[in-house]
């Protein structure tokens, strides 16, 4: 294309349409470079549109200087207008390169039916549609949970294959690698709870009861809740991203074709790993939460480390501990299921994998909080 950067000054492009009876001559002059074309181009297209059907359109490019895509874009517009009016275009007068590019651009006729119509639907319509989607998604998630339960049944009866290595890897990633962040979150949780509690209790001269507060709060609810939230951000998101990318790479299709259920090979190891690991991490988190509470009581209030632990041991019966761990078990399973479900039904693009990951974390947290509420009610009813 003769658009090589020239040092000579550019001549502004111009175009005029000369009418001669039933035919028209489009006279092009100057340098047609991007960013310099003016309103003349639109005028020329309108002039051509005004011609009667069957008229002949030819070109005069003797005064045309350098040109680039700007000229081709103009010619394409002109060509479209001419076609709509059934005019005959004679491209002979155009420079060789421009003629070829125009021919290339018009070689494949536009697929009119392909063009998108951006239809703005009324708000009520969209609201209804999104509610219907929530309904069908709920059904699909319940189905997924059921399928996973069936796969677990197959595993227990020895009819499903789960590779030990996969479970081991998931255990390591979801468990051991999560220790630092679980430690930090639970320790700080105990610290904050201890500080806020002791500051209030001190007014009644009951500072020692901070151990009851921290002990019961952490062991019954908070350690499990905080650990599960950390798990959803860490492992749930990772599961969704990993499975979503596998969907994009058609790895899941390959599994299905090979006769291996993706639920068995991909979902089960992750669900098992997280269901085992969340209670263990919670137990560890409880120890750190209590340490946090004890540190703040001993450091800022006159409750010694030993007093704190003795008081906490009195206050927390064993059933609180087991109750907390059962909650953690359920949270872990929910986080893994939400992550895997969103990963498996992810679309096949980078964008879709990102959406799947976000949705997985949101769903996990919604499920954890809902389950926590349900647990509170059930435990109370059962007097646990």
């Amino acid at each position, binding site marked *: 294309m003769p658009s090589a950067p020239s040092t000579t000054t550019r001549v502004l492009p111009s175009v005029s349409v000369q009418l001669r009876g039933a035919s028209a001559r489009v006279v092009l002059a100057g340098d047609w470079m991007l960013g310099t074309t003016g309103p003349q181009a639109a005028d020329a297209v309108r002039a051509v549109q005004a011609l009667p059907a069957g008229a002949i359109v030819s070109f005069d490019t003797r005064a045309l200087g350098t040109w*680039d*895509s700007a000229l081709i874009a103009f010619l394409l517009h002109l060509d479209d207008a001419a076609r709509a009016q059934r005019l005959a275009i004679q491209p002979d007068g155009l420079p060789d390169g421009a003629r070829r590019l125009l021919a*290339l651009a018009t070689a494949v006729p536009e697929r009119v039916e392909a063009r998108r119509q951006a239809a703005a639907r009324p708000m009520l319509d969209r609201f209804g549609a999104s509610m219907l989607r929530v309904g069908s998604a709920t059904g699909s998630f319940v189905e997924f949970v059921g399928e996973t339960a069936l796969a677990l049944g197959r595993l227990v009866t020895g009819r499903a294959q789960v590779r030990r290595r996969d479970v081991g890897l998931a255990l390591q990633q979801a468990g051991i690698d999560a220790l630092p962040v679980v430690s930090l979150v639970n320790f700080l949780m105990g610290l904050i709870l201890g500080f806020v509690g002791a500051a209030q209790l001190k007014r009644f001269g009951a500072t020692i009861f901070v151990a009851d507060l921290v002990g019961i709060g952490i062991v019954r609810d908070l350690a499990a809740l905080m650990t599960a939230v950390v798990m959803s951000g860490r492992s749930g998101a990772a599961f969704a991203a990993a499975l979503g990318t596998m969907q994009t790479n058609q790895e899941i299709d390959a599994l299905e074709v090979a006769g291996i259920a993706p639920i068995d090979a991909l979902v089960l190891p992750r669900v098992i790993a997280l269901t085992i690991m969340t209670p263990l991490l919670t137990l560890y988190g409880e120890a750190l939460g209590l340490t946090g509470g004890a540190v703040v009581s001993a450091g800022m209030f006159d409750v010694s480390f030993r007093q704190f632990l003795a008081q906490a041991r009195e206050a927390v019966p064993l059933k609180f501990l087991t109750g907390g761990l059962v909650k953690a078990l359920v949270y872990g399973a929910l986080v893994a299921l939400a992550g895997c479900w969103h990963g498996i039904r992810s679309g096949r693009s980078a964008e879709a994998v990102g959406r799947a990951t976000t949705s997985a974390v949101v769903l996990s947290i919604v499920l954890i909080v809902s389950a926590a509420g349900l647990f509170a009610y059930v435990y109370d009813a059962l007097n646990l």
Partner: protein
Amino acid sequence: MPSTSDPIAVRGLTMAFGERVVMHDLTFDVGRGDIFFVMGPSGSGKSILMRHLLGLLEPAAGEICYEGERFTGASPADRTRMLRRCGVTFQTGGLWSSLTLAENVAVTLEEYTDLGPAEVRELASLKLALVGLRGFEDYYPSEISGGMQKRAALARAIALDPAILFFDEPSSGLDPVSSRLLDRLIVELRDSLGATVVIVSHELDSILEIGTNSIFLDMESRTMAAQGSPRTLRTESASPAVRRFLNRGDDPREEAAR
């Protein structure tokens, strides 16, 4: 610095990952208007060579020059300026999945030109029209077929009217008819844009049909075994590996001797 002002000049290029040498002592020029094929068996380092030419990997030794200007060792700003003259289509298309086809083409236009939104949109439509995708401006890459993705990637590559076009396996995964059409499109764009084309491929049909110059990367010797027009190399090359490659495994000289 080599005295040549060819679009691309490569001198003594050695590509290595740590201790493992992929190819050594590659020296070749790509002439203006060439359709230059980088040939070689799978795993010979063809795509790695392209990644070196684009500055995505650094040479272990040797240098690469564009239009007589040193690319290897140049500052990031100079590199960006040199690469602006290049358009690239990657093996898997590499279209940005979160953008529509028109937006994919428009990214470099918005980045490197002062054009307004309407002009950018018009140009993007033009580039898509050039590759036969009129009317698909508002589609996302995941909604169109593999062949259309390849062509859309080509439209993105020619957005800035590049002087050099790179293709990594342009016809892989295409049916023979589409792949032939893509070849013709490449030739047509070369002729009308006046561009130089570098293609990494082992598609024999394309190589023999449209190639004007080429190099062959040999796995055995870990360097280039031949340079020249593929049609000539097919019978004239001194290397049996090259002759066998260009004749689908049958060496014409051995056939003649038999």
